[in-house]
């Protein structure tokens, strides 16, 4: 399957490190996600107070997307967002479950419940960057370059999107990992399954 599209930019966040195009932007000492995300917010110059209301999955996706989108010199409001992971919103699901498990200690909260959907992080990115665009959140056993490639190509070919922000954002059992990439008409790296797979593994 051929493509006339390119991976314009990509970002990784894992192991207390944020890297853009494989170059380290931030390397923090080993800690938990909450502490690391605060450090990253500050060090990356993210100015968005609503960040602190988000759940962990949204914080992770938001930070990664922000690095890519604020460095995009040609922002497009119909930049689609196509994300994926394995654990969906299970990290926050457990939190909500803990508020309802015991009848004597029952305190479900809309502020938690709203984050029990994986695509909320797409909403958070769309609000910040004013993206009126196609959204999709997929759950795969592991990173699936084939399906992400097909879906992004289809959106671009049918002109449903002029760019596509794709990738993997996972928060599960204390671990976290984000790999996002921006597909567009221009760039140095061809948009192929092989390249997506290679960059994911960096």
């Amino acid at each position, binding site marked *: 399957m051929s493509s006339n599209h390119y991976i314009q930019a990509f970002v990784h966040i894992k192991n207390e490190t944020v890297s853009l195009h494989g170059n380290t932007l931030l390397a923090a000492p080993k800690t938990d996600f909450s502490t690391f995300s605060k450090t990253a917010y500050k060090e990356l110059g993210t100015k968005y107070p609503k960040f602190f209301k988000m759940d962990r999955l949204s914080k992770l996706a938001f930070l990664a997307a922000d690095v890519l989108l604020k460095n995009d010199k040609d922002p497009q409001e119909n930049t689609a967002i196509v994300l994926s992971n394995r654990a*969906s919103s299970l990290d926050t699901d457990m939190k909500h479950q803990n508020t309802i498990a015991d009848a004597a200690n029952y305190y479900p909260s809309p502020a938690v419940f709203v984050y029990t959907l994986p695509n*909320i992080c797409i909403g958070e990115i769309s609000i910040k960057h004013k993206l009126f665009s*196609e959204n999709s*959140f997929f759950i795969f056993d592991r990173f699936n370059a084939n399906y992400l490639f097909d*879906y992004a190509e289809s959106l671009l070919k049918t002109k449903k999107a002029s760019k596509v922000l794709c990738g993997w954002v996972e928060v599960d059992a204390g671990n976290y990992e984000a790999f996002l990439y921006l597909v567009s008409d221009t760039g140095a790296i061809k948009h192929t399954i092989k390249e997506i797979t290679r960059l994911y593994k960096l």
Partner: protein
Amino acid sequence: MSSTFVSHNNIISSLGCNSQSVVRQVKKETTGLSLVTDERIHPKPFYTSIIPSEKLTESFKEIGVIDQYTKLEQMLILSLKDVIDASAIELDDRVGIIVSTTKGNIDVLEKNSPFPKERAYLSSLGDAVKNFFGLSTEPIVLSNACVSGVLAVATAKRFIAQGRFDHVFITSGDLVTQFIVSGFNSFQALSDLPCKPYCKYRTGINIGEVAASVLVTSKKTGLTPEAVEIIGDASCNDANHISGPSRTGEGLVRAVENAIQEATIETEDIDFISAHGTATLYNDEMEAIAFNRLRMLHTPLHSLKGYFGHTLGASGLLETIVGMHSLHQNTLFASLGYTERGVSKPLNIIEKTTPKQLSTFLKTASGFGGCNTAVIFKKANKNHK
């Protein structure tokens, strides 16, 4: 571009265990909602539409070992089996599978669940379906809030257009659980009565459960009589709020405009709208604003939530299937629960089930995270009246 069709279909709900029997009830304006007392789900009685577990296991034990499958897995497998068997398609690597759900087996997180917590992973739901049928491709689980079911149809079309598959089976479902009901209740979004979409007296939603499955295919041969062609589809985020719909209906307006553009039709060509209509104050108002901006205030419109409640990740697919049968039977189905306009802009709500020659309908859905999806369907068999 080549055509894509929605063909074989199944619905399992409190109203019946196949599309024909469920649609027969809808045509008679019979609701599947009833007042249920189950303190494991909600401390006080609530209106819902639930698939009876005993009936479900009765059917499932003929094809699988009951203790190995959760209630949702049994629902999805039974529903999908009906579609796969009817289609007689060989499950090779040209056949994709999409599972549409918001919460999957979330009930396994409850203290008394006999299943391990790992079953709450949505991918394990996909695996259960894949392994049961011996599918050869990786399942695509789609979890995009309340647009999931209709977005799954658009997604199937996109994977087919991209050449990945010739056929895609979609199965969709969510359960009525303490998890979901407590959450919507914390939003004060639940109605104490059967829901009344777009009505002046609406007070919120009812949560319901169904399993719904379809075959999406690029092959024009062997289509069912009620099959439809997917002629346009689009989604658009509101970029406005994560839990409240846009006050201007921006995302929905753009999604419908884009779907109409792809379909190369005019708004007047749409015979009816199967809208989202959850019966919350804000959702229904947003839709009324959006359809007025789109100049579709005269297009007959219904919400099917009065029959099934809001069935979350299945609702968009369920309502697509009912819409297909509505076209085939040339009958507009009533928007159950509606008596008096309760939105600020006029809409042409279908108040009574009425015969009418039909060929095209628009399905829309909106959900948390600001997502909106619109898909336009046209009768595939032109000689069918």
